[in-house]
């Protein structure tokens, strides 16, 4: 009985695999999307990650909007580089699109150590979806009351103020490097390569002076009054902490966020790109999508393919300049 069960399971899995392989129609440019067709969404991070959660919400919305089946597939590994490599080599027929994260998409081809086989040219951007601005926080009893205090201390005694990042070359790391470049301060970085969440406990335990993360990382702690957020790295205050000033308000023109969008392989017909992008915009305008994303502490920010591409170039310039510093 159990043998039959397992056997059936193997058969089902094989059938499922075959179905996935066969479903992609070969010529589809004419009327995209074909009725009843399925579109694959490749996700560069594991199931359960922030990127995964956002992408799956988008997939659900697009299904309604386009009347197709969206099949989310996780292709995690090497900070999404495995998925970018696959996406760059995929067929640009509109039946595959993937997640794009900054800075991982950009660093992977700018940093020669990462040996990426693609550049920006291999992708055609669809839309920016979610941003999560950077923040710096300290404990409530910390001597640093403002961003200015923290920076002054890191300037007066270089490399004594410890501060977390969510890993080398993460958005937090680049933001801090830019802040150092701007102010002449020198922090002692403590890299938590397994992510901002793993830095939270040592920070809350008072082992590290300051915490760099994103808005969504400290919702609970802020609400309970367990942290003091010194500033938000965005051009406007975040609706989640209306009382917290931006960096700009405090005289530091620093804007940084973890941000996620979508792209198709280069060579995908322009009509399909525009149609997908417009459908994404519609999903992002729907109240139910907005509620789900905002409950996670994230901010929706749509950028059209052209705006997104310009954003990429600006980000890449920053990364190119700061990359040598990140390896010091």
């Amino acid at each position, binding site marked *: 009985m*159990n043998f039959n069960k397992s056997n059936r399971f193997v058969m089902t899995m094989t059938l499922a695999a075959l179905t996935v392989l066969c479903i992609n129609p070969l010529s589809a440019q004419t009327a995209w999307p074909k009725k009843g067709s399925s579109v694959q969404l490749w996700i560069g991070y594991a*199931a*359960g990650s922030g990127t995964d959660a956002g992408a799956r919400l988008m997939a659900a919305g697009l299904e309604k909007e386009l009347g197709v089946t969206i099949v989310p597939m996780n*292709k995690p590994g090497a900070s999404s580089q495995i998925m970018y490599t696959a996406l760059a080599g995929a067929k640009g027929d509109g039946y595959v699109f993937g997640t794009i994260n900054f800075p991982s998409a950009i660093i992977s081809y700018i940093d020669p150590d990462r*040996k990426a086989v693609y550049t920006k040219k291999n992708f055609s951007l669809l839309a920016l979806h979610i941003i999560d601005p950077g923040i710096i926080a300290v404990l409530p009893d910390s001597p640093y009351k403002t961003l200015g205090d923290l920076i002054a201390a890191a300037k007066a005694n270089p490399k004594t103020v410890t501060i977390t990042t969510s890993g080398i070359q993460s958005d937090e790391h680049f933001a801090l490097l830019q802040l150092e470049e701007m102010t002449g301060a020198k922090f002692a970085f403590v890299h938590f390569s397994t992510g901002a969440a793993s830095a*939270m406990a040592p920070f809350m335990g008072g082992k590290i002076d300051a915490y760099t993360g994103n808005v969504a990382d400290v919702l609970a702690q802020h609400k309970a009054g367990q942290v003091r957020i010194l500033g938000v790295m965005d051009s406007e205050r975040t609706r989640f902490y209306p009382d917290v000033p931006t960096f700009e308000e405090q005289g530091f023109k620093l804007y940084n966020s973890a941000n996620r969008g979508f792209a198709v392989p280069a060579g995908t017909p322009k009509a399909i790109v525009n149609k997908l992008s417009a459908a994404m915009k519609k999903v992002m305008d729907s109240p139910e999508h907005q509620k789900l994303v905002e409950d996670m502490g994230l901010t929706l920010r749509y950028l059209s393919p052209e705006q997104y591409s310009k954003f990429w170039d600006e980000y890449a310039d920053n990364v190119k300049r700061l990359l040598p510093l990140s390896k010091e």
Partner: protein
Amino acid sequence: MNAFSNLMMGFSVALAPANLLLAFLGSAIGTLIGVLPGIGPSAGAALLIPLTFTMEPTGAIIMLTALFYGTQYGGTITSVLLNVPGEAASAITCLDGHAMAKQGRAGTALSLAAIGSFMGGLFATLCLVVAAIPLTKMALQFGPVESFALLTVGLSLMMGLAGKSIIKALMMGVLGLLLAMVGLDPVRGMPRFTFDRLELMDGIGFIPIIMGIFGLAEVLSNAEDGFGTMKLAKMSSLFPTKQDLKDSVGPIARGSLIGTGLGLIPGMTGSAASFLSYIAEKKASRTPEKFGTGMVQGVVGPETANNAHANGALIPLFTLGIPSSPTVAVIMGAFMMHGLIPGPFLFQEHPDIAWGVIASFVIGNLMLLILNLPLIGIWVKILKIPYGLLFAIILAFMIIGSYSVNNSVFEIGIMVVFGIVSYFLRKMDFPMAPLVLTLILGPQMERSLRQSLEISQGSFAIFIETPLSAVLFAIAAVILIAPAFKSLRKGKNSISGEST
């Protein structure tokens, strides 16, 4: 007393029929995910989240948390029966669990594991109700420096896993540490030993390795004897004897403490908890040499510990809103998608949800116990399948399992290579447990060491200047030196024994 009345209120929420049903569903799906190798609790929970959007938040979270600790029950089943760990935290159970199965005591192993898991989960939940705040404060004492010291204690216990030869155990331990070095350097960002394979950038996958080491190697050595039925003793009763239960009391107590404690400390995984509990049992035993040959303690201890860890890891989530493991992060995501922020405020703003979910832990664990005990009779029938057929099923099972970790064929290759290599290593009497232990502890150890040195700007003095870490290092030193004195004393005794 206040906590008690809150808990009673929680029970009234958790016992609502709909929530009971969801706790049951979560437990059952969790058991299934535990049985299927490859799909871990975090992927399982993540895939289920979209289904919960239309549910009440309380019910949704009850289901997802039940799934999380349910996997710890399920993972044991394949470890014991097939020597294939269904889940990373159940890997160590293979050693004695599968040996028990070969002696015809698979039923006993599984029922004791289920009882241990239940007790462990119950203990951790009690800790959450009674002492969540002080326990969290204690756990916050563990920064990178203290974590490194604690992991050093764990590593010094590696000797406890040595078989006949200490040298061979050390060699395997070092090999494990070397394998743990593969991947992107956590501080410099340089790829190490990756041979330009992107798949190795994040390190070698742990699940494929243990599936190869335990599962494939076992299949290969069984295949040596031809494809008849597995050589099994006659199946004895499914239920543990009085002696078995007596033997389980100590392991359950120690496993509960170790599991809950490590669950509180961020970065410590369920597999670390089960491994350290196994070593603790071996140390506590009067017959440590019998471990690996089907000792009840070697099954109950780790299984108690991994479930205590699963429930204990939820404590920092409730007290501080800190997810201490990837799976807990997924559960935290589920809270947030339902508009709830886990953390101290949850108890004030939504006491019904917070206490309802906590009460559901007790109910869910009880359900898992009830669900698992009768099923054992069915599970052990797997062993009656002729080995030639079972061999093929296990192989297919492991291939699908390795693939499904990252949806990547590369992981299947890893599983096969490690299976073949460890088949030969086993022939040469190299113990596999030290390798797995260092593979578990290695990455976290490296990260905390380098974080500590980033805090101190390169000075090793930080490990002695931090009181807690100094104490832990002293303990590690005693553990390493003690056996030398012991053998010295034994030597004297035997001499005096001869002279009289």
